[in-house]
């Protein structure tokens, strides 16, 4: 994953900061805009103090006007600038949809290449400490639906840095999905700049009995589930798509061809979601040729409840993931199996308030 000589351990948030800072230093056309990017919190540290280093016009606060501010970013991008727009919560990106879908995603095609929109939209999914129904939503599937958009959802600090650098250098609009639960997760990150290519999934942990695909924060939970499954002598392969549009269906389908079992765990709802897309694409690829069993897990089909006791039911957990995997491997009629306990520290330790 990285060259040891130049690698350090950074948090996901620090990796995002490093990518942003190094690209701003490399290219004066890169700038950051978003509510609170230049405040004392600096967007969970990911934009902290960039205005002091690069000037107030390259890391600036904006009015609470998501629609126009997205359009303004697009307009600046049309003129050759490379804006990065940051949204503390993805729920607010709904206010940007007109500009993202009708303008950013269309410009290149509608004008037959006369225009390009090198825009990055960073959208952060919230969870825990009572985020509730309107601070916890994940809309990556909305963007996956739209031709002309790239959608990345890196899980590791390594991939967060590389994906953001790729996105900033891309001449196309990119939606970068971050999960708030990942910002404090640590990992090995090379010091130098590098790009993570689109459409290349990462096998986080190889295995032979079942393919588990985990999106964004759920990839982390799937790795924990893998460890729980070891007690039942099940060897799970965990795949992180990293890039959701384009999807690396090849890597996932090849894995399912070997294992004959597929569990997709999404950081979002199931209906018309990323999990549906992955499952149907795998079926189109190998269905009929290679029989396989499959299941999807994701948010409960309800708005997110605020109280912790109900919120715990709302999200897939290492336990529910490993149990679903167990059933796929052993069959629905197999005797009940109780997975062990494992802590999801980034969730348990989160105290908000953001």
């Amino acid at each position, binding site marked *: 994953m990285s060259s040891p000589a130049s690698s350090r351990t950074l948090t996901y948030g620090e990796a995002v900061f490093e990518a942003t800072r190094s690209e701003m230093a490399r290219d004066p056309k890169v*700038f950051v805009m978003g509510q609170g990017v230049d405040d004392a919190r600096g967007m969970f540290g990911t934009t902290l103090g960039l205005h002091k280093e690069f000037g107030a*016009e390259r890391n600036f606060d904006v009015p609470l006007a998501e629609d*126009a501010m997205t359009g*303004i970013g697009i307009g600046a991008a049309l003129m050759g600038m490379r804006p990065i727009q940051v949204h503390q919560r993805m729920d607010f990106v709904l206010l940007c949809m007109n500009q993202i879908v009708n303008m950013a995603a269309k410009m290149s095609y509608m*004008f037959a*290449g006369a225009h390009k929109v*090198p825009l990055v939209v960073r959208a952060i999914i919230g969870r825990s400490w009572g985020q509730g129904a309107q601070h916890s939503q994940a809309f990556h599937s909305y963007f996956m639906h739209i031709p002309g958009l790239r959608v990345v959802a890196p899980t590791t600090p390594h991939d967060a840095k590389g994906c953001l650098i790729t996105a900033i250098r891309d001449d196309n609009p990119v939606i970068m999905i971050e999960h708030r639960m990942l910002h404090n997760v640590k990992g090995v990150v090379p010091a130098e700049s590098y790009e993570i290519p689109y459409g290349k999934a990462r096998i986080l942990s190889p295995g032979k009995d079942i393919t588990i695909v985990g999106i964004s924060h759920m990839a982390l939970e799937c790795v924990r589930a893998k460890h729980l499954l070891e007690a039942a002598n099940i060897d799970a392969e965990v795949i992180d798509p990293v890039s959701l549009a384009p999807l690396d269906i090849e890597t996932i389908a090849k894995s399912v061809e070997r294992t004959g079992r597929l569990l997709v765990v999404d950081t979002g709802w199931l209906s018309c979601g990323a999990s549906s897309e992955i499952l149907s694409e795998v079926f189109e690829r190998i269905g009929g040729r290679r029989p396989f069993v499959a299941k999807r897990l994701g948010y409960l089909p309800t708005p997110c409840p605020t109280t912790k006791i109900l919120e715990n039911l709302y999200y897939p957990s290492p336990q529910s993931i490993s149990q679903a995997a167990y059933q796929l491997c052993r069959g629905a009629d197999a005797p009940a199996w109780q997975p062990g306990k494992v802590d999801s520290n980034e969730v348990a330790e989160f105290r908000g308030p953001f």
Partner: protein
Amino acid sequence: MYLIRRVEEEIIRLYPTDKIKSPVHLSIGQEAVAAAVCDHLDQSDVLFGTYRGHALYLAKGGDVPRMMAELYGKVDGCARGKAGSMHLVDPDVNMMGTSAVVATGISNAVGAALALKMQKSKAIVVCFFGEGATDEGAWHESMNFAALKKLPILFVCENNFFAIYSHVRDRLAGPGLLARSRAYGIDAEHVEDHEPIKLHERAGEAIAAVRRGEGPKFLECMTYRWRDHVGPGEDRVHQYRPDDELDLKIANDNLKIVSSLLTDDVRKAIEAEEEKRVAEAIAFAEASQFPEDREVYDHVFAR
């Protein structure tokens, strides 16, 4: 103005042949606004407009044959047939592509002005929209940001009273667009229809002020759409506006007002030259080919 009028009259003539398989939103009757404003612009100045954009494209100096080929859906069109009438674009003269979703281009224009300021460019942005767009929150958000950052942009509102068939009096509360603009600290002016020369002067003054770095300006230009909201026809059958109101506007044609200021020789010379351009553009569109099937996948992403 004559070129715009004649191109659109030719569109009306050609439309029944079904060679133009695309909605057209004609500017006939409104030509003076685009002509008066764009006369003050350089090629490097950046123009944003709407789906009622033929006049704007032509006034900015957009390529006429490529416009006609675009309407025909041909490969030599300004967007290889992928845009049609509603999304005309000519990057060579900084005619940015027009948008068909009301008010969406306004914030893009403000963003372009932000970029010009960051790039320390001498160019300015001019953003056209109808009064219907000012109903949208995006207009207010955009005006606020343009004023906040003192951006080099002229907002030009073509107030033709109607959003499709909805009259502005049924949509607009309060004292009007000038007051709304001034509330954001943006200097605003109002020019009545049938005052093309005054319009030209006011536009020149506003553009000069924007060039001096005085920040955004707003120009409300009263005008009138002679034809239906969309399509080549008249729309008297819908009876949403009195016939005599439309008749009076047609009788007081801005093109006639401007033409009357010219000597016969000059006017005839201009008309002959523009007739030739229009005929050549149509011949170009007729001769051009349709795009090949493989082009359907081109340009989803910038290369």
